[in-house]
């Protein structure tokens, strides 16, 4: 199919179907039904079997009219992970609802003793017939309070080195044995939680990948997550929308009467270059992957986004001036500066810290030698705890 034919088909479909007033659930159902939700996936799995490049054509047409729901083959890390590693029955039952946003999800990875060192998880899963019994504690789990399922990494073998005894599950959250306690964040919000798991159960049919091979599944899921975090960030307090990150700093500089300040102007240009540069890196990464070469630029996105968010928050704070001493609805300029300065750490800590990202870039992209790891080949039961 040519890009032009596809463009025409998508825009005709949107002209007939898209109405901003349409209820979201109903709209998403129509998008999934038509195969636009994940157009790069095969037809038997909700897609249209399009190349990556044509997938971008679909996304562009949706963007042009402001319609959500497509591009989930790139963004929906849950559906993508289930598609890659799940059994057919699980895929048939859950991918549709995931694409239609009918189930909500969370990531049960981090634990009190396993953050950057995720392979050190101690939550255990023990086999019991055709199900597994799970005990342990997770932490920093975003959206756990509302989630229907969590992507869970749990230890299933204690006698082998840490990377080789982990299994990956799609874990049902709504059951006795799951206790969720909200945590109070530096943004004064409570999106992330502690999750206590006590004799909770997950069917073996909800296992993604082989027993004890969960580390590989996790790498795929993390790659999706990091690529999403490199592409987008939250726009501001009180919205779950994604930042366009256009000229809002310029607008703020005008509003605050600082637009002629030469120091401010230098900062505005610097941030613009970071923002545009990230966009070009992402475009180039896509083009390189599309042309079949591996792209080193691909893995830089999250680190670049973190730098951009911290830097623009710094400039926003300097524009707010003394007003950044205040917070709350009576002082929206100060409030937003504080919110964005604090929330930037979501990107520089969540999904793997900037330090961990640099290590990954150094080792996997640049080929620099690994650090000595004292626990790499020890059976996990013999590894030292903090």
């Amino acid at each position, binding site marked *: 199919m040519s890009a032009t034919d596809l463009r025409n088909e998508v825009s005709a479909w949107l002209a007939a179907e898209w109405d901003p007033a349409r209820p979201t659930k109903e709209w998403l159902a129509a998008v999934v039904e038509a195969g636009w939700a994940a157009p790069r996936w095969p037809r038997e799995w909700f897609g249209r079997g399009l190349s990556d490049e044509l997938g971008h054509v679909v996304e562009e047409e949706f963007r042009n009219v402001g319609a959500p729901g497509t591009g989930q083959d790139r963004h929906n890390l849950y559906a993508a992970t289930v598609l890659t590693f799940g059994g057919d029955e699980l895929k048939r039952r859950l991918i549709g609802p995931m694409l239609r946003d009918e189930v909500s999800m969370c990531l049960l990875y981090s634990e009190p003793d396993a953050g950057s060192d995720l392979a050190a998880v101690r939550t255990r899963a023990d086999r019991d017939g055709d199900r597994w019994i799970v005990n342990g504690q997770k932490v920093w789990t975003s959206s756990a309070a509302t989630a229907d399922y969590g992507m869970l990494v749990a230890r299933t073998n204690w006698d082998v080195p840490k990377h080789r005894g982990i299994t990956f599950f799609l874990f049902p959250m709504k059951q006795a044995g799951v206790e969720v306690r909200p945590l109070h964040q530096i943004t004064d919000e409570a999106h992330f939680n502690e999750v206590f798991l006590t004799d909770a159960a997950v069917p073996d049919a909800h296992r993604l990948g082989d027993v004890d091979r969960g580390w590989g599944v996790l790498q795929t899921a993390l790659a999706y997550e990091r690529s999403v975090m490199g592409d987008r960030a939250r726009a501001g307090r009180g919205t779950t929308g994604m930042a366009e990150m256009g000229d809002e700093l310029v607008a703020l500089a005008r509003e605050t009467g600082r637009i002629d300040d030469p120091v401010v*102007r230098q900062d505005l240009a610097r941030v*613009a270059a970071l923002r545009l540069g990230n966009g070009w890196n992402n475009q*180039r990464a896509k083009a390189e992957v599309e042309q079949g070469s591996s792209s080193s630029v691909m893995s830089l996105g999250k680190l670049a986004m973190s730098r951009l968010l911290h830097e623009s928050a710094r400039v926003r704070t300097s524009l707010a001036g003394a007003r950044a001493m205040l917070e709350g609805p009576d002082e929206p300029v100060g409030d937003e500066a504080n919110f964005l300065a604090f929330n930037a750490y979501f990107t520089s800590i969540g999904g793997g810290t900037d330090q961990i990202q640099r290590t990954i870039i150094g080792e996997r992209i*640049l*080929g620099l*030698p690994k650090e000595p790891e004292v626990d790499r080949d020890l059976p996990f039961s013999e590894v030292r705890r903090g």
Partner: protein
Amino acid sequence: MPAFAVTPEQQDLRASVRRFLADRSPEAEVRRLSDTEQGFDPDVWKRMAGQLGLQGLGIPEEFGGAGAGHVELGIVLEEMGRALLCAPFLSTVGLAANLLLTSGDRAAQARYLPGIAEGGTVATVAVSAAGLPGAGVVARRTDDGWRLTGTEPYVLDGHVADLVLVPARTTAGVALFAVEREASGLGRTLLTTADRTRRQARLTFTDTPGAPLDGGLPAVERMLDLAAIALASEQAGGAARALEMSVGYAKTRVQFGRAIGSFQAVKHLCADLLLESESATSAARYAASAADEDAPDLPALASLVRFSCSDSFVKVAADTIQIHGGIGFTWEHPAHLYLRRARTSALLLGDPAFHRERYLRRTGV
């Protein structure tokens, strides 16, 4: 062509330029030429034109060139930047050939472009980092034609140029003039540049005859934008090469019983430098394809890549010295050659702070 798609022809171009430069511009040659008065090898210059057609790459076919675009030119400049090629290429092609093209003066194009394309003519434009185009020279009409008087303090390859294109002030604003090698009253003083791989000269004009060209200030501004993008490509190539040196050294230098690249202080620095270097490459390539498409925001993009690629190259080259430790502080090690190129090229054609301001103005802010 969407930005960033690479054709097989473009891949071939990159490979053949890289091979040529590996052969003709290895570090030993760069160092040898840095110590000569002329600063480049005329034989290599001829071969660049004869074997590869590099000087004529972007010159239209009717004037002896290949009629290729800025993307192709960018590929060539990335490679030249990697190799620190000593040659008057940025001046002859990035400045002068571009100015002849943007001037729209067909007679001047027919007169000068074929010589540039075939590698016979070295050319430059008398614009300086220091001031606005035309700031230094005044042109006066006499019974005997136009006469130029004044000084341009930093002219790229001004010591060897066969052709100097001069923006000069007239009573009717800035106009362009062509001054040829033997013109009377043309004084050339070779300067001691911090970056010895690229020469500059102070040019003085004393009642020097100049042939008027079409195209005034707008032609110069347009040329400067195109040259900014060409220079950004060269900087991106230099940054990529400096980073390779750092990473290569970090893998082989052993201290405390480990390769230094296994220490996070070094590894993480390298990761940050990769982000700098790749961002410079993406920005330069994007701007080059925008130049080919004659994008309306080209002036803004040109200023943006001037400051962002300059800053990136300086950072990468500077940290490359640090990563090399003591050996990086020696004259014999190539790291400083890249830092000299980076620091100097950041100041050519307007420094980063100037272009940050200009970027905002050009985006209407």
